[in-house]
């Protein structure tokens, strides 16, 4: 199976290790991974800040770049939700504005074949034990769009539970938002920081070494808060844990 890696602009620029981990993991599982070089950004930040019309060209570009692949895999719950949940809505809005079906038709092909990484592993490849080894105590934070928009459910936890050497501990208040929220983190910095600090305190209370999530933008906020509050914890993307093996452990 030949799939496209939709890495997201944030991961491409700031978290290349996550991208390398997805490639390593999927290759190990027998998947042929391609990274279309023309990919940029799905338009989520534009759309969610109120700039839907600026997001439209980015969505069309996404569809151009990824349209011909069998499957599109992304290590981001919120960017996955942008494509799956909000691209159809953009098409509907354009139709309601009297602009016809063009946008909806352009975006339709990429919607059903876009998968968040853990969904792709569990639902498409049918694996929960990916042969990973990660000898650390980990607590898992389900990020909001993965949890509520995509309905990832217990997929990430099942994958983590199958990792050799990994001890998974419960995160109190796991379902509560970390406070990132894209431009919310800047526009409502006080509330965002308070939410982040509460999330970090809850994470610390578990005694885990690592807080794991399936979305680096949330981890950037949580990790930045952890670092500022001088906790000993590290934020790690789930792809890096699942890619780690006894022969090639994660850094």
């Amino acid at each position, binding site marked *: 199976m030949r799939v496209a890696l939709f890495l997201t602009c944030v991961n491409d620029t700031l978290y290349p290790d996550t991208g390398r981990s997805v490639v390593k993991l999927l290759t190990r599982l027998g998947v042929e991974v391609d990274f279309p070089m023309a990919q940029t950004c799905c338009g989520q930040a534009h759309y969610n800040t109120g700039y839907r019309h600026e997001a439209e060209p980015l969505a069309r570009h996404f569809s151009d770049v990824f349209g011909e692949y069998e499957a599109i895999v992304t290590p981001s719950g919120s960017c996955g939700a942008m494509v799956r949940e909000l691209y159809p809505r953009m098409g509907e809005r354009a139709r309601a504005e009297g602009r016809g079906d063009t946008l909806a038709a352009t975006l339709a092909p990429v919607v059903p074949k876009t998968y968040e990484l853990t969904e792709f592993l569990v639902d498409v490849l049918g694996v929960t034990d990916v042969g990973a080894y990660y000898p650390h105590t980990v607590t898992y934070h389900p990020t909001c769009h993965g949890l509520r928009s995509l309905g990832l459910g217990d997929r990430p936890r099942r994958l983590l539970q199958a990792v050799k050497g990994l001890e998974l501990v419960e995160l109190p208040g796991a379902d509560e938002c970390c406070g990132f929220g894209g431009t919310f983190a800047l526009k409502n910095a006080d509330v965002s920081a308070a*939410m982040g600090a509460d999330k970090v305190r809850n994470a610390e209370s578990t005694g885990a070494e690592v807080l794991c999530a399936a979305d680096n933008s949330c981890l950037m906020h949580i990790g930045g808060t952890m670092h500022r509050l001088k906790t000993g914890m590290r934020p790690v993307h789930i792809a890096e844990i699942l890619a780690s093996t006894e022969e090639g452990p994660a850094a």
Partner: protein
Amino acid sequence: MSGTFVGMPVFPPPAHPAFPQAAHEAVNNPTLRGNLRHATHTIRAKRAKAVAEVSDWAELREAGKRIKDHTLLHLDRYLEQVEESVTAAGGIVHWAADADEANRIVAGLVKETGESEVVKVKSMATQEIGLNEALEAEGIRAYETDLAELIVQLGKDRPSHILVPAIHRNRGEIRDIFTREMSEWGRPAPEGLTDTPAELAEAARLHLREKFLRAKVGISGANFVVAETGTLVVVESEGNGRMCLTLPETLISVVGIEKIVPTWRDLEVFLQTLPRSSTAERMNPYTSTWTGTTDEDGPKTFHLVLLDNGRSDTLADEVGRQALRCIRCSACLNVCPVYERAGGHAYGSVYPGPIGAILSPQLRGTASEIDASLPYASSLCGACYEVCPVAIDIPEVLVHLRERVVQGGPVTREGNKVVLKPAKGHAAERAAMRAARWAFARPGALRTGQRLASRTRRFHPRTLPGPGGAWSDTRDLPPVPAEPFRDWWQRTQGQNGGNGDRGAAK
């Protein structure tokens, strides 16, 4: 935050600061944070348990949504049916286009009775229009009889929650307010009042009983109006509503036009979902229903004031209209992480929390600083949508209203179609969004930017000056990697069959 209001705030509030500024104080107030955290987490957990008991909750939620959507779609017809059925049952129906008109009507009706005081059962609609203040200006004193509303009124405070308006107060604060203020308004608090819930409730009971027995005029809202019979329904849990609705000679009910349900059969759905969503009760304790007037029983005169006040304008917007499905359960407030930290006052409206963030900017428009900032008072985490018993997709409406703020566009105000201009103060953001869109439409430009960031990474600070401080005041920046992923990919895998150049010509 302490207000200097007598009764409830005027709607809309005069020059309320934008949400981020208003929230700043609350976020840094440890007592308030503690009170809110304790209360919201308690109700949240109870609600989840009460909802989990119902095997057909998803179906009830869908039914509630459909009943409300159907009613709103045919609201003109159902409003006429309500007028006919209420009139036939001996009630008198009044129509109020806005807050001023509603206040004028109610003040006029009270004056006709010759009375100068009224008892009130908690009503969001009368708070929305600032009725208590309007009555005060006419020399009429309105007594709130709901326990929490009493606390707010005695404390010269403002409500901060739809269902538990004094959620920001703890028991000690309430004891102090009762001891200090009750004597000003009527029967004083008992000597040596402690902060045990039973003693506080008894003090309120004695204080209020005097008012119930004396009042000749009662004022209420309604949770529902059943169109087929013209029956009003008030759902409450203290029994004060039953007193206000049955003891006075004259009853005046101010009701938003979106409160209609077509039939009693429809009501059945909401009497299941509302108590569990709001107070986590399986069945509501006091459900009062009345149809016009009845000889020798209850009020002799009944007035229904049907209130628009921005609702028709909201109804005209096909995305935003779902906010009118709201049954005021406040489940969205109790689950909202932003409400939990910012508190209700920061929302500058009698409707706080997620529902307030989509309702206020629609009912009042987005012209004021507070209303233009409310759609952004959310991380879009979606917890509100998940718990909403009528499936209002609050994040969808928030984003829709953000669009209205930054891009402008067609809206309906006071029944007229107008085209809004983009709000001021978003110029820099708009330019940044355009620039980002330009770069993202050109992979080459994105790559140039990424490489520049990587090559200068040794010089990047961990904190930022100016507006960047919004991030770095509390959070360290992530280090920029030595190379972006795409450079690694091209260096290591691009030539091994990966179709690296697909679409790159753009």
